[in-house]
């Protein structure tokens, strides 16, 4: 771990500084701004977790909403019986296990088939859970009444987000990360090179899912009332996919760079053009794709390289 820090001292300092600053933000802002940050952290964490698997292996998953929903549900059920931290851990654990099972059974699916399959998963879980709740509990709703403050949720999500980004970064520089990328480049070649592609894919899919479930569980602390249609909302899957695509593939901080402007842009547009919000957002997407191929990451890197080149030239004189 120390070599990683030595290799990227600026990035490390930035992360530590950023985390500390953000941790103190709640003292200075209103509940609304905190809500914006909470959703921001949730989106960044989800997008990073998503990209950890899907960005590297090119297996585009739309199951984000499924695992997120599982997290919400586990919390709703468990918080009645166990303390909140245990309930959160249970959410992450169950998300991991479910993803393991799904991962093992979907090995042969590729490309758009995998994508649509994962989309179907969310709906299937939603419908089955609904049916189960009605049959067994004669109600579909669950109530979550806790005294957890907004600030605690904020700090917890901040922690999860930072750990996810940092963890993702460490993995990307490790052999596991190399294996993931090799699978993304050419899975057949990777297998022939001796990588246990099955194990790598399934473990990483499950890790990514457990983070998604955890984020769902934490957010659930804010809803007094949930049912399956609230918990399993496909919009999350699409939002995360869009954020990652906007940010651009290839870098760990790509999803973050995509998620932040997306959330802030939505917030700004909802405020200024509440009724024409859809139209404005759609036009933004189209514009971004045409003028920012490769996502925002590519733009940032290009700017950085041209700045760096100029700096080197100045130094040379």
């Amino acid at each position: 771990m120390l070599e990683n820090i030595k290799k990227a001292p600026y990035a490390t300092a930035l992360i530590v500084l950023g985390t500390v600053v953000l941790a103190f933000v709640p003292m200075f802002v209103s509940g609304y701004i905190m809500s914006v940050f909470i959703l921001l952290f949730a989106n960044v964490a989800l997008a990073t977790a998503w990209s950890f698997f899907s960005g590297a292996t090119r297996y585009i998953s739309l199951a984000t909403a499924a695992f997120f929903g599982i997290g919400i549900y586990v919390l709703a059920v468990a918080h009645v019986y166990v303390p909140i931290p245990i309930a959160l851990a249970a959410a992450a654990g169950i998300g991991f296990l479910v993803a393991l099972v799904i991962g093992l059974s979907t090995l042969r699916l590729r490309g758009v088939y995998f994508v649509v399959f994962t989309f179907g998963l969310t709906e299937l879980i939603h419908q089955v859970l609904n049916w189960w709740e009605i049959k067994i509990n004669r109600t579909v709703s669950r109530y979550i009444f806790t005294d957890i403050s907004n600030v605690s949720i904020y700090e917890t999500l901040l922690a999860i987000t930072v750990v996810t980004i940092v963890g993702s970064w460490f993995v990307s520089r490790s052999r596991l990360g190399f294996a993931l990328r090799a699978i993304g480049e050419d899975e057949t070649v990777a297998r022939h090179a001796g990588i246990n592609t099955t194990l790598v894919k399934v473990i990483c899919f499950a890790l990514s899912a457990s983070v998604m479930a955890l984020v769902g569980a934490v957010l659930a602390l804010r809803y007094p009332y949930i049912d399956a249609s609230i918990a399993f909302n496909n919009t999350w899957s699409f939002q995360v996919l869009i954020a990652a695509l906007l940010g651009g593939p290839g870098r760990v901080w790509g999803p973050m760079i995509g998620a932040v402007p997306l959330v802030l842009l939505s917030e700004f547009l909802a405020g200024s053009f509440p009724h024409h919000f859809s139209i404005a957002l759609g036009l933004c997407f189209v514009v971004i794709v045409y003028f920012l191929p490769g996502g925002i990451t590519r733009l940032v890197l290009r700017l950085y390289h041209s700045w760096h080149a100029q700096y080197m030239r100045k130094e040379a004189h």
Partner: protein
Amino acid sequence: MILFEVFLNGLLLGGMYGLIALGLNLQYGVARILNLSYGEFFVGGAFTAFFTIMLWQFNPMLSLFISMPIAFAASWLIYQVLMMPLIRRAPDQDALDADVVLVTFGLFFVFQGLALVYWSGDLRGYSFLARPVHIFGATIAMNRLLAFSGACLIALTLFGVLRYTRFGAALRAITIDPVAASLVGIDVRKYSAIAFAVGGALAASAGMLVSTFISFSATDGVVYTLKALIVVIMAGVGRVTGTLAAGLLLGVVESLGGYLIDPALTIAINFGLFMLILLIRPTGLFTRA
């Protein structure tokens, strides 16, 4: 006897699924564009039909003469103006899919926003051919039968065109391998644009037919895009004629399953079947693996 009626209902439902998906399979299978705004053309067709009967008091089928050409032209323009630059610059199908998903998602937002502004989010419905048809003791709805017939007609026409015309042969060549097709002198761009445009027109026609028996609103687009996508994947991308068969299978299993097990599980059975088929045949029912 209820079982037989449930089976017939399943066939009609399946016909509807196939109908919704045919256009998308043309767009994705031939033109290789995963159009997330597909459902908006469906909704456009539904609204045109609604206004035709409720506002102007004409037979809603006449609305096809308005909605299909408009959908065709709009889709053709979208392909030439918005999609071509993306196709040109994409190094592979994955990269193209990523770009296309973002852009068509953006289009979906734009179209839905416009629909909401002009038509509001109200639920719409009208009565057209809401009459019973009796077949061997079972009763089915005439409007659903009409949609089913429409699905069969379109599927047959597409089959005929693809199998027996030079135009169809060109489309099949493009579906199999666009690069090879261009090497043998097929104008891939022109034919893809036409296929994409026809897909859009088919979406509008599906919207009109389905609107005769299901109420709809301006925000239904994405629901139908996803319904269509599921059937396309189940049939196999590019298997245009298999689309109807896949839809029928889905409809019958969903209907019978709901009746025999529990109606509350109909949607679960729908998705369950689709996912099961993918697990057994990962590239769709009718793709030669």
